[in-house]
């Protein structure tokens, strides 16, 4: 059924169709509309039997989900940014315990400075937590990925994080195709836990494991994720059979045929990138796009294959490995058959900074012309940062410190505001 709805509403509907049994909610922008939507559905009795729990923190949200999942319930929560970090310990724990929780991360920047707008720093900070991480390109995909996520999670006994760009997707009204309950039921069998807290078959979950077996436990987690690389495309195929559209999988390629330059990115920015690429293609530039849907497990083979013929790669990412450069690009480099020097990192859109076609066009052109630095920051106010840096250098050398700071604050703070 086609419907013009807000992204959050679409996701709420999708999650609802998956018959969640326990939903934990703690508000944080830009995730709020999702859980509000679900809350309304639960209140209306549409999801019965389902428990909607207003917890006191994200840490509790994930913890309640852990308990529910371990007790055999299909558990869901959503968060973003600070919230994700607030629950970080439990996020790792859920993965370690192999509990198939599904969580939406409405991607948002991390403070300080506090900022509610979109980038990928939050999700990528958790890249090694053991969760499967899927990134949606648009609202239709966000919706579809949630349905796939439950299937994936439960088949693999692993938690899955569905990442969608805060505001850009969560708050955007788009037309989406909402599947029917029958379709979802046909795709998603009831949850059959691999381990469950049940008085009839008592087990101890969450043992302490020492050096004698810890490596093995970690290896097995790794092996399971690597296995997922084979299963994810298969379930995407099945998804297509049931729902009649392509969605999910490890990665999407766009106009890669004969592309010498490949732009790699995650999430909604792929739309703008594709538009830009279309423009460049129209001008005869051999450029294509690789959109990563599955960031964890990292689809090494798929990336390698997609980049096999690329002369250069531009990784445009909404995240920053402070002190190094790119996070995604680092992963891409590892899977690029060519020289790492030909993998460019473009850090873009941090804290919600707009990514325009013009700017993209500029960096892609620079890359093609060999003028792009290894790591660049899209649309950075170079003048401003230079001034601040200069001041700081100066300050360290001369003048009464307090006076220097005041001066700096007065001028610089007003400017950046």
């Amino acid at each position, binding site marked *: 059924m086609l419907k013009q709805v807000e992204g959050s509403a679409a996701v709420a509907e999708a999650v609802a169709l998956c018959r969640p049994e326990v939903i934990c909610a703690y508000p944080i922008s830009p995730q709020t509309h999702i859980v509000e939507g679900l809350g309304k559905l639960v209140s209306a009795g549409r999801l019965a039997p389902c428990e909607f729990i207003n917890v006191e923190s994200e840490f509790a949200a994930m913890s309640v989900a852990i308990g529910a999942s371990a007790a055999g319930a299909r558990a869901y929560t959503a968060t973003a940014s600070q919230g994700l970090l607030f629950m970080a310990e439990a996020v790792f724990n859920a993965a370690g*315990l192999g509990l198939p929780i599904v969580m939406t991360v409405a991607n948002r920047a991390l403070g300080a400075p506090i900022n509610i707008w979109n980038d990928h720093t939050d999700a990528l900070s958790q890249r090694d937590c053991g969760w499967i991480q899927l990134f949606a390109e648009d609202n239709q995909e966000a919706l579809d990925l949630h349905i796939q996520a439950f299937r994936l999670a439960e088949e693999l006994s692993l938690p899955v994080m569905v990442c969608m760009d805060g505001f850009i997707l969560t708050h955007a009204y788009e037309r989406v195709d909402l599947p029917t309950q029958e379709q979802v039921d046909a795709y998603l069998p009831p949850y059959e836990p*691999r381990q469950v807290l049940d008085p009839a078959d008592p087990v*101890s979950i969450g043992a302490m*494991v020492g050096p004698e*077996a810890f490596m093995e*436990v970690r290896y097995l987690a790794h092996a399971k994720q690597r296995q997922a690389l084979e299963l994810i495309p298969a379930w995407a195929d099945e998804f297509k059979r049931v729902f009649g559209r392509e969605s999910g999988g490890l990665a999407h390629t766009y106009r890669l045929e004969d592309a010498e330059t490949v732009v790699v990115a995650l999430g909604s920015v792929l739309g703008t990138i594709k538009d830009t690429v279309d423009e460049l293609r129209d001008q005869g530039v051999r450029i294509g796009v690789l959109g990563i849907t599955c960031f964890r497990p990292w689809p090494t083979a798929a990336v390698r294959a997609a980049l096999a013929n690329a002369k250069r790669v531009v990784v445009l990412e909404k995240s920053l490995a402070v002190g190094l450069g790119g996070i995604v690009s680092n992963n891409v480099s590892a899977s690029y058959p060519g020289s790492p020097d030909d993998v460019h990192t473009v850090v873009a859109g941090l804290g919600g900074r707009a990514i325009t076609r013009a700017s993209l066009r500029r960096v892609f052109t620079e890359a093609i012309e060999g003028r792009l630095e290894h790591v660049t920051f899209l649309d950075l106010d170079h003048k401003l940062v230079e001034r601040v840096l200069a001041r700081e250098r100066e300050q360290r050398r001369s003048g009464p410190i307090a006076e220097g700071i005041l001066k700096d604050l007065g001028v610089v703070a007003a400017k950046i505001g």
Partner: protein
Amino acid sequence: MKPKPFAITLDPGSSLANHTGSWRTVRPEYVDRLPPCNHACPAGENVQGWLFHAEAGDYEQAWRVLTRDNPLPAVMGRVCYHPCESSCNRGQLDQSVGINAIERYLGDEALRRGWKFQPPERQSGKRVLVIGAGPSGLSAAYHLAMRGHAVTIREAGPVAGGMMRFGIPKYRLPREVLDAEVQRIVDLGVTLELNSKVDDVLAARREGGFDAVFLAVGAHIAKRAYIPAGSAAKMLDAVSVLRGMETGEQPLLGRRVVVYGGGNTALDVARTAKRLGAEESIIVYRRTREKMPAHESELEEALQEGVLVKWLSTIKQAGESSITVEKMALDAKGNPQPTGQFETLEADSVVLALGQDVDLSLLDGVPGLEVADGVVKVDDSMMTGHPGIFAGGDMVKGERTVTVGIGHGKLAARNVDAWLRGEQWVHPPQHELATFDKLNTWYYTDAPKSKQPILDTIRRQSTFDEVVGGYDETTAQFEARRCLSCGNCFECDNCYGVCPDNAVIKLGPGKRYEFNLDYCKGCGICVSECPCGAIRTVAEEI
């Protein structure tokens, strides 16, 4: 279901594979310590042992355990001065357990219900002569009979009971109680020959074809003291007064009676005199109340009945209707010394209660048999210097109480039995004493001692009705349950419960517990928390 996650998810209770017993440096061990009551009992009763059954309301079993050592519980429950209670650990907590009264309850219950002794399955074919049917002789006869020996008791008097009959007034021991308990011993197949004085032990043994002899003729020749007395002065001795009460020759004591002496017998006579109508019954005793050998409770009862005591006094002279007493004073050593102050007391009669001697005439010419200080010498096995002739009770050295006599009878019987088989009886090793410090008294409920009913004073002054009444069942059980079970497991489950390692195995009712040394870490909590001190810690041999 798919296989469970490796290492993180584990099967229930699997830690049994980890034997934490290897951590141990000390080990708990169940012990049976000797309860102080048992330890103090001259008759060697397993007091704690029979209380255990009484607690459960199994009075017959309690009585059976009791009578393994003492065949006269209804008597003992009245006349014993119960050293068990004086040493009872509960005395340090609140008040001692009323052991004696419970014993009486059991004895009475047995009589009421007609419980009999279980005769032995086989007879030994040996014959034993017991001379004297007092407590010691009856006890020996019982224990010997229970061991399969054919026992004949020869008693000089017309009835059995000895000092239980002739020394203890019936207001303390009703005769039907005594008779019934004696009869039960006779019913075991013991031959009791009354009015059958033995003048020559060796002849009696030979003629009767006895394999062994137990002498228990007691001590009933009253000790005399020299008191200048006028010809008309009426001087009697306690033994004959009390004996007269039994044989119907009721003594004529007059309105004012003076009893000379400070033992229980003195009190018995004084109290008897009161009941016989004496207006004044005065005890003259040369020391103080604290030094009086008589039992405190008896003195108390006597005073209640109106008996008077002249402390620190000796009789200097007795006249027709008065006596002269001299006041005494205690010297530095606590001995009474004359003061030269005199006093006259009116007295229609003076009864001397100064102790008794043994009639040793029947022992003349027994080779090897030795006498010293007026009593027969016996070795550890209660045997005299003459093989096969044993002796006990008041005629040997020791405290002269019914209970001691019963104990002698039991000990002698064991030794006679061994001797008849050509063996030597050896006392089994004694357990360590269960002293108060071994207990964890926190666990015991607060419970005051139960009182026995007492006859009202008027009737005590005019009749020979029994003064002290018995417990009813509820009281007996309550009182039994005050027992701390010192040193002996009473299956309270504390060790089983308090072990943090579940290393105590509960074996089921009556079977107590066992340590599971595979898991016991030796923390010692069970030892500290055992209420009754039945667990100890021993070093682990490494």
